[in-house]
């Protein structure tokens, strides 16, 4: 069990932890004979330069273009996944008919990692739909499966209560099943967005066309600019963190009723 720590001690320990981490990093970096691992200060000065100057690089794009293309691919892939997976999940959880139709396809496709689709996607789709498709696959299954689980977890006594208040099947679906499943759906959205973010960077690394943060770190690695690679990684981390924080905030708000006091 976690005990109580004074705020001061917690901040102190966080500082000590970060300082040791960057200290160790710095020590390894200056002793790296090949100079592949840049020092933390190299990375941060590079990061500041990239963000402030926003110059055109070898790929023919400015840095903000990379960020924008990656974000838009994730946005479209993820939104498409949510728009398809939530209704399909609600129906599959609710109706044995819908489940019997969707389950075989889902079970067939689910074990295939989204990355395995990349070679096909690059040839089959035109940019940017190749990477949008990969994000879609990554985000789709977590959202679908948590939504189905959400519908199945609805307490049958709530269904009974709604029936005795005059609810028909349509009412049960819209007024009980859907709202009761929201906490599960939001969990699926959070996980789906996280998986989508991982798949986009991987897809861009492997070689979709156009700009993107994955393309950027891949190109910089090819020309040995490792401080730029790390700066790109840092940006990927920050954006991922911000997205998950925002979704977690919405999730908390929408699921507040389900929290245990």
């Amino acid at each position: 069990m976690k005990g109580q720590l004074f705020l001061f001690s917690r901040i102190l320990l966080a500082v000590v932890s970060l300082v040791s981490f960057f200290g160790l990093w710095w020590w390894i970096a200056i002793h790296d004979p090949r100079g592949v691992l840049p020092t933390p200060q190299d990375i941060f000065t590079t990061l500041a330069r990239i963000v402030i100057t926003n110059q055109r690089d070898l790929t023919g794009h400015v840095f903000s273009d990379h960020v924008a293309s990656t974000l838009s691919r994730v946005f479209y892939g993820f939104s498409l996944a949510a728009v398809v997976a939530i209704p399909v999940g609600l129906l599959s959880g609710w109706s044995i008919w819908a489940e019997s139709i969707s389950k075989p396809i889902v079970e067939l496709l689910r074990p295939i990692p989204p990355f395995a689709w990349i070679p096909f996607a690059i040839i089959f789709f035109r940019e940017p739909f190749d990477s949008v498709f990969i994000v879609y696959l990554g985000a789709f299954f977590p959202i679908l499966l948590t939504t189905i689980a959400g519908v199945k977890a609805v307490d049958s006594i709530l269904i009974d209560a709604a029936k005795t208040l005059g609810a028909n099947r349509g009412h049960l679906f819209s007024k009980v099943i859907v709202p009761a499943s929201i906490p599960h759906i939001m969990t699926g959205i959070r996980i789906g967005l996280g998986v989508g973010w991982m798949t986009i960077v991987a897809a861009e690394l492997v070689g979709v066309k156009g700009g993107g943060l994955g393309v950027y770190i891949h190109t910089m690695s090819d020309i040995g600019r490792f401080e730029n690679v790390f700066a790109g990684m840092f940006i990927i981390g920050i954006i991922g963190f911000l997205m998950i924080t925002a979704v977690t905030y919405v999730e908390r708000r929408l699921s507040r009723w389900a929290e245990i006091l």
Partner: protein
Amino acid sequence: MGRDTIIQIRDLNKVFEHEKTTVEALADLNLDVYKGEFFCVIGPTGCGKTTLLRIIAGLEPPTKGEILLNGQKVGKPGADRGLVFQEFALFPWRTSRKNIEFGLEIKRLPLEERQEIVERYIKLVGLQGFENALPRQLSSGMKQRVAIARALATDPEVLLMDEPFGSLDAQTRNIMQRELLAIWEETKKTVVFVTHSVDEAVYLADRIVVLTARPGTVKKLMEVKLPRPRDRTGEEFYAVRRPLLQELEIEAEKAMKKG
């Protein structure tokens, strides 16, 4: 009190079949419930009290026999038979007000009328100050008030109550019993109230039916003629309680031997 019958239970049988085991829950049950009365059903654990209520509510079909409400055969569940569950069964994402409004939304009443009805029942059950609380923020007693208001808001013919105070502590239970009687007197609803507490039944009921151990059927039907408010500690109260307790004990022993 008029003696118009509102619910007629005719040769009711219920058998539950689950894989290879069959359980006979109710056998040849015949009962009449009168309009406007407070009717209590008591019986040993597992005697089919709850099953009886769920069949009246339309949540379970009878295996044989039928139930008539105002002479009409009861089928699917509907807002004409309000049910109050022991586990409250409130919609956890809805505030007290929105829980009470649920059945009115389904009836498609206009917003103003809904709000007016909700306000009336919030006052009736004493929920002022808790209108906008979520169920998880309410005590058990308050939750059951919301559930009672929700069941009454659609103006049902009968109010079915399945051990509604079973999970409340003794003090809260006594308060809720008193308030339920006040609500019943004001709304003049027919109440069918299932409990395993003889004390509760004697305090509340106009008439009490004791069911036998499984399969449940009528063991004893008795009228409680004590004037209200009833004194739980009075000699008359005990005089009513005693024979009921004896009957119930015999049935409870039978139920235990059957396992």
